[in-house]
């Protein structure tokens, strides 16, 4: 069954045209420029499916969520929604600052379409989930922003929707609360709810979604498996080396990077070999060259940095375009999606720095759990029994 169907949706906004002459009647809209936030966007989401939507700022992600939740109407096209839909877009925006937490639970719950009796029945569970028993009868204007969001998400988590729209709700709250929210979402997934997830957090999109859509300037650029879509999205961020205009001011630059196991295109797995192939361009001969590849966790922490300095092999480069390969016989990092920084240095001067320009997707391989994989071999040696140890055991 199809839960959501968007049929050739377009959305137009009017933005004031600054170049047009201003009159007293300008605000009537005669001199505003058109801006199409979405153009001819069609997609479907099946029951129980999780669809991720990625794209740059201004690509039209938020507009899609607003259209689906009914906040605004499309300029053209129709949207068909089957079932109860809950939009967790900026939870807590329905709160009234003067009212207490408890009163706001009733208010926000009612805005999300819950009945008063339903809210009363779930009140204890909501308060429990938010972890704010102490402050529930305090006006929310005294709350911190984190408390706002926790209470808002707690209410939303008690909805019984068929379809859930998720924005960057996970990006707020402390680590413990984020874990709680992620737990909710996986419960939601398992219970067969349909999910539309919009996020810049590509690792979460990869983890949660079955399918993804890449939006670019209001159009669907690509639709497919989350990994392929994320890869394409990342390539948008770093210009394609073949079509890229060379920057004459730069003495040298990194043109792109790809990760694979043995042959280009292979999936990278924990505990198996990994190759990182980096293309570079140098306009002059370089001395004392160092390439650095940094891998970051989704949380933003540095996971590992690979540097060519330690090998001693690459020290001088001729002018021109070439590739260097980093080879790792056994990849120790755990499965997940890592963000990648590239850095190129010569004679102690930084020539190029590309931040978060690519992703490394590591699939499950060897090793079960933990922070990293240790390459290992196991041996068993049985010791011959000695009379001394026998005595000890008897004692």
């Amino acid at each position, binding site marked *: 069954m199809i839960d959501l169907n968007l049929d050739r949706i377009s959305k137009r906004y009017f933005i004031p045209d600054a170049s047009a002459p201003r009159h007293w009647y300008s*605000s009537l809209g005669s001199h505003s420029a058109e801006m199409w936030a979405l153009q001819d966007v069609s997609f479907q989401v099946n029951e129980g499916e999780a669809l991720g939507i990625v794209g740059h700022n201004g690509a039209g992600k938020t507009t899609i969520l607003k259209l689906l939740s009914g*906040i605004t*109407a499309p300029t053209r096209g129709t949207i068909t*929604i089957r079932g109860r839909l809950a939009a967790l877009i900026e939870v807590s925006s*329905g709160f009234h600052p003067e009212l207490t937490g408890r009163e706001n639970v009733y208010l926000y719950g009612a805005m999300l*379409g819950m009945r008063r009796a339903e809210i009363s029945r779930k009140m204890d*569970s909501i308060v429990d989930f938010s972890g704010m028993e102490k402050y529930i009868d305090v006006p929310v204007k005294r709350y911190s922003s984190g408390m706002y969001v926790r209470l808002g998400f707690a209410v939303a988590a008690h909805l019984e929707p*068929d379809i859930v729209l998720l924005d960057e709700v996970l990006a707020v709250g402390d680590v413990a609360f984020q874990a709680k929210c992620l737990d909710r979402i996986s419960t939601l997934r398992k*219970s067969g*709810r349909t999910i539309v997830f919009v996020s810049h957090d590509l690792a979460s999109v990869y983890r949660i979604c079955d399918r993804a859509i890449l939006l670019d300037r209001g159009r669907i650029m690509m639709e497919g498996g989350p990994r392929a879509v994320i890869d394409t999205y990342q390539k948008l961020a770093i210009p394609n080396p073949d079509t890229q205009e060379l920057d004459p001011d730069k003495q040298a630059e990194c043109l792109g990077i790809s990760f694979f196991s043995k042959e280009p295109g292979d999936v990278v797995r924990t505990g198996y070999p990994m190759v990182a192939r980096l293309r570079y361009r140098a306009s002059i001969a370089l001395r004392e060259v160092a390439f650095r590849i940094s891998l970051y966790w989704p949380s933003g922490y540095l996971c590992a940095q690979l540097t060519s300095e330690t090998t001693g092999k690459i020290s001088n480069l001729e002018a021109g375009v070439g590739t260097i390969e980093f080879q790792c016989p056994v990849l120790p990092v755990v499965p997940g999606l890592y963000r990648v920084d590239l850095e190129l240095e010569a004679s102690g001067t930084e020539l190029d720095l590309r931040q978060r320009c690519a992703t490394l997707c590591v699939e499950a391989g060897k090793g079960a759990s933990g922070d990293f994989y240790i390459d290992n071999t196991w041996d068993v040696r049985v010791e011959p029994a000695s009379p001394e140890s026998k005595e000890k055991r008897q004692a």
Partner: protein
Amino acid sequence: MAPEDSPVTASNTLPKTDSAIWNSADDHPAATNRRVRVIGPPSFSPGTIFTGLRTLAQYSDLFYTLSLFRLKVRYKQSVLGWIWAGLQPLALMAIYTFVFSHVAKVNTNGTAYPAFVFCGLLPWIFFSGSIGNAVNGMIAYPTLLTKMYFPREIIPLSYLAAGVVDFLIASVILAGMLMFYRVSLTWNVLYAIPILIGLGIFAAAIALFFAAVHVRFRDVGLALPFVLQVWMFATPVVYSLQAVPQRIRGLYLLDPVAGAIDMFRGAILYGHSPDPRLLGLTAGLAILSLLLAYAYFKASEAAMADLV
């Protein structure tokens, strides 16, 4: 649902109640009785009113909750609290009594002027206060319009509902005043109920219309206090209908507020039953205005999030 949804490992510190969220089979209605909704570009048709009312009925609990909280919020952090609902008309009564019974005399058919003017002020303050609050309240929290979805008419209508409660509080003062001036009531007092319902309907119409326009043009909020001031003197609040020249009285009574206030005062102070033609005209105009205003509001609703 599946047992793996609620792991029983020691590390699972989540409270037990959580398992009731999202994964219980009872909470998830069978796919067959799901409602299908189609969202398209905004259009104006009589059907808009029908579907709008159906959605409004689904959100009736929000309407109730929001109206209740309007009252709570209004008098929060104020010492006198609810007393303000009565103080406001009392203060106006004092001013108008000074002006129109000492400075310039107004013919009241023998009733004491304070009771006479209070009878007019009560419905007028309900009308003008509700509209003023509704129109300004529409844009008081723009995030409600840009981040949340619910039928937007609930915002202005909740202010109207709060206005009704304020009216009831102030009515207690009116009752005391009637006793003080020894006004004898008749059964015709009950006519006040249909009269006020008609006034309420007309107030809803005006509030919805101006609130919808206000989202796009803030001129409404700026002009409204002035418009309401003029409007008050165009209705028989501080003077009686008899003071209006006979030849323009027909035109004058086309304003449902004027008709309602005159009939309200007649029923309360003089024990008159309202002229059925005037009651019919007032009610008819009020209902017609509400239908038009609601259709206009629903047609402009879809664009409110983009304009506010």
